[in-house]
């Protein structure tokens, strides 16, 4: 049986209490300190949920990140926030990165954006291709100027680079950028939400990263190339669906994967469902790992 892990990269949804606190903050009805306290409570609750689910790497849920780019844009020279842009078929928006000059991270991400965690952890950052998307700057320049300096200060078992935009082209540019990011923590490229078939056919499995994430709600299992030798981040929790997954179905699916190392993950950020739904999905992610292990025993 494949070596099996489970974890949940990406932005995690806010609790109803944090939703209310941030709404109150915007309306002048509470203080930033009170919101900070609620974020800490949300974080503690998330860590407990991840530990209870038996996840192998803990993630901080990026609870202070407004979107996948904002803290980096605010900490970088040569980049700023652009137009509010819809993310795929969701009603969730992000501020698209906009270039104003040569990109340079002027200060590392602090504990507000990479929270201290107990035990082995993962960190999620945008992939260089995603951060460069639409700016006119090459992914390699973004990697050199912004992401490499951000990575240099990180202590993590795994850094997951979230990539929602990559199509059948762009792989060469992405590969050049990923080369720059090597030499530090292990890296995984997480192809969020979408059929990875064309990317795989064009060589995504050969990219210079330790792991590759694939959305198996859109990608056929047979599209994973023979001899795949990286950690496969198998997107088996559908973060755009409110339906809770069936752990036994996931276990049966994992049996069909002909790879050596598998990590069960969502197929994208869980922020696209509510916290109540995400909690259930997180629990089922852990149950799926257990069910897979039991099925193989």
């Amino acid at each position, binding site marked *: 049986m494949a070596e099996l892990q489970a974890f949940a990269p990406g932005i995690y949804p806010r609790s109803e209490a944090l939703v209310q606190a941030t709404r109150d903050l915007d309306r002048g009805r509470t203080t930033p300190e009170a919101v900070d306290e609620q974020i800490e409570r949300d974080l503690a609750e998330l860590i407990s949920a991840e530990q209870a689910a038996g996840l192998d790497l803990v993630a901080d849920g990026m609870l202070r990140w407004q979107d996948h780019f904002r803290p980096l844009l605010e900490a970088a020279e040569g980049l700023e926030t652009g137009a509010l842009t819809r993310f795929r078929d969701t009603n969730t928006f992000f501020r698209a990165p906009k270039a104003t000059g040569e990109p340079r991270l002027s200060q590392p991400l602090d504990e507000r954006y990479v929270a201290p965690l107990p035990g082995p952890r993962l960190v999620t950052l945008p992939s260089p291709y995603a951060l460069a998307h639409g700016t006119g700057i090459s992914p390699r320049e973004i990697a050199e100027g912004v992401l490499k300096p951000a990575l240099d200060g990180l202590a993590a078992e795994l850094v997951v680079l979230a990539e929602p935009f990559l199509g059948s082209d762009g792989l060469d540019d992405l590969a050049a950028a990923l080369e720059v990011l090597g030499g530090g923590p292990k890296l995984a490229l997480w192809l969020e939400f979408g059929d990875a078939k064309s990317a795989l056919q064009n060589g995504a499995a050969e990219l210079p990263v330790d792991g590759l994430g694939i959305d198996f709600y*859109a990608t056929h299992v047979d599209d994973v190339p023979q001899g795949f030798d990286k950690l496969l981040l198998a997107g088996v929790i559908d973060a755009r669906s409110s339906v809770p997954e069936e752990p036994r179905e996931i276990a049966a699916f994992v049996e069909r994967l002909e790879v050596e190392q598998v990590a069960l993950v969502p197929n994208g950020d869980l922020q696209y469902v509510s916290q109540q739904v995400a909690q259930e999905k997180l629990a089922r992610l852990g149950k799926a790992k257990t069910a897979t292990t039991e099925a193989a025993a």
Partner: protein
Amino acid sequence: MTFLTHEIGSLAKPPWLVKTSQGRELDPSDIEHARSWGEKVGVEGHEELVELLERGGADPDEVARWSSRYCVRLQESAGLDVIWDGEQLRSEMYAWAIAHANGFEPRGTVRSFDNKYYSKSAATGPVGLREPYHNEEFSFLQSVAKARLKIPITGAYTLAVWSYDEHHTPKEGRLGAGYGRKQEIEARRELTLDIARNLIRPNLEALIELGADWIQIDEPGASTEADELDLFVESFNVSVEGLDCFFSTHLCFSDYDLFFPAIEGMSGCRQYCVGFANYDSRELGTSGADRPGYEVISKFRDLSYEPILGLGVLDIHTDFVESPELVRDRILYAVEVFGDPARIHVCPDCGLRTRSWDVAYEKLRALVEGCRLAEEALTRATV
């Protein structure tokens, strides 16, 4: 020659409505808000509301009707030609529709952006209408408004694409099966047309029966999937086909190029009100280079059925108040592109509910003043 001006959708709910709805105590500043805005925009009998708020324990529905009156007068006072009440009698554009429909269940709160959120539901069964859900509002506004009314209704495609679908999408069997876009789109089509036929159309018929002559079908979600634009068009046509009314649609925060050529088949839409200012420069100027946010408007001009363009000239995501001169230049550029001022209406990019009333009011006044400046410039040019 004058440009018709109109609102797009929502306005912020005032603190005295928010707190009353939540059963919270009002501050003196809330009462003052009601008093000062009542005087500022000329709400008849606003002293009655002030007394009501001072006494405490007011009925939230009654306070919401007052808020509706305030927003009507706010827009009339700003000088808009066609108005609505900015969603004061609705919870929100998605939640209100879903709350009055059969076949949906709530699934919690999801972030829209930053600290803005929305309640998201799942389609769990066949869609049905409990009762026409804008009739009471429209009848009330007919009794209040002095200006012409336009009533917005959230469109079928947006309701579908903003919902989870637990009814048409298979619950099992998708994992690793290459469940492709074709199947996703077919599931979305079933849900969207179900909503168009059984939720939107009956509402439109009821509003027309009450006397509505301009209905804006809001579709802010229309372009979220480039390969579903034909479905958006089909759902619009199914919703309005054969009905006698001026139908418009509102599109915002999208890559508008995506709508072409799909909307060539949407000839029942007589006006597109579209947000452009969000993408535009704040510098003055009337050339194409000066107005990058408006580059796409020639495509709306070239539609064979010659719809009117509702030109978004106010960025609703910022407190920056556009100068009348900036509004003027955006209009003049659009007139230059269209070659026919009669095909241009002027409006904000979208609803102004994320702005304070102070900012929204100043923006709307600038919009109206910008129209006057544009009219003067065009008049001078023809003399």
